[in-house]
C-alpha cells in the first residue's frame, strides 16, 4: 500500500521521497511498550517471590545494585530482542498503526503502573 505522502503534504513533492511502510514504526513502539511492561512485571514479581528476587539480584555481579540490576537488564534485553524480532516480521509490511500504537500504549501504561511503589510494594510479604 503506497502512502502518497506528497498528496497530503505538497511541500514534500520536491523532496522526492520513496515510500516507507508503517511496520518499522509499529515495531519500535511495540518494543518500547513491551520493555516497560517487562520492567513493571519483574518489579512486582520480585516482591511476590523471594527466589525471583534473589535471582534478579545475581545480575548485579557484586556491584551492589541489588535486584534492580536484574529487573533493568532483563527489561532492556526484552526491549532489544522484541524490537529485532518484530522489526524483522514487519520490515516491509503496512500495518494498522492505530492498533499497534494503542496496544503498545496499554503495555507501557501497565508496565508503568507496575513500577509505582504503592502498587508493587502491596505485593510484598508483611
Amino acid at each position, binding site marked *: 500500500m503506497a*502512502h502518497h*505522502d*506528497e*498528496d*497530503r*503534504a*505538497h*511541500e*514534500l*513533492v*520536491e*523532496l522526492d*521521497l520513496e515510500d*516507507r511502510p*508503517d511496520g*518499522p*514504526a509499529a515495531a*519500535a*513502539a511495540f*518494543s*518500547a511498550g513491551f*520493555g*516497560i511492561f517487562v*520492567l*513493571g512485571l519483574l*518489579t512486582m514479581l520480585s516482591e511476590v517471590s523471594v527466589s525471583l528476587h534473589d535471582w534478579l539480584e545475581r545480575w548485579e555481579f557484586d*556491584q*551492589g*545494585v*541489588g535486584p*534492580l*540490576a536484574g*529487573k*533493568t537488564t532483563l*527489561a*532492556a534485553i526484552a*526491549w532489544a530482542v522484541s*524490537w529485532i524480532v518484530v522489526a524483522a516480521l514487519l520490515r516491509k509490511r503496512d500495518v494498522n*498503526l*492505530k492498533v499497534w*500504537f494503542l496496544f503498545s*500504549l496499554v503495555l*507501557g501504561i501497565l*508496565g*508503568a503502573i507496575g*513500577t*509505582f*511503589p*504503592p502498587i*508493587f*510494594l502491596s505485593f510484598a510479604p508483611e
Partner: protein
Amino acid sequence: MELTTREVWTVLHGLVFGTVFLIAFAGGLAGLWSLRPGFLTTAGIRERMRRLYIGTWVMAVTAWVTVISGTWIVYPWYRAKLAASGGDDFAGCAGAALPSRSWSPRDFLLSDVSGTTHSWHEFGMEWKEHVAWASPFLATAVAFIVVYYGPRLVARPWLRAMVLVMFVAAFAAAAIGGAFGAFLNKVAPIV
C-alpha cells in the same frame, strides 16, 4: 573548591546529563509539534529535520547514559547497608543529621533518626529507580522513527501523534527520576 569522586558522579548523573536531556527535549518537542502540512516550506522541512535527527538521538543517548550511570555507579553508594549492628539495621545512624561514609543515604532515610524520612526511600527512590528506565526505551524508539521516516512525518498524523506521545512519556519518566533525585540529594546526599 573540591568535589569527591562520588559528588562528581552525582553531578554528572543528575545535573549535566539531565540538562542535556532537557535541552534536547525542549528543542525536539517544538520541532515535532510543527511537523504539520502547510506549516513549513520544503527548505524549512530540510532544516528542521537536521536538527530533529541530532536532537532526538542526543536525547536517546543521554537517557541511556543517565540510567546506566545512575543504576550502576551512583545507586550502589546510595543503597549500601552500612549501619547495621547487632539486630538493629540502623544502629549506626543514631544521632545522625545527614548521611556519611558510615551510614548510607538509604540507611539514613529508613532509620527516621532525623524526622519522618522513610517515605523518601519507600516512595521517592523506589519509584525513581524503576520508572526512569522507561525513558531510554521510549527515546530510542522516537529517535529511530524520526530518522527512518524523516519528512514523511509531516504527512502521517497517526505516526506523528505516536512519536509525540512517546517523546513526552520519555520526558515524563525522566522528569520523575530527576525531580526525586534532586529532592533525595537534598534530604540525604551521597557523600
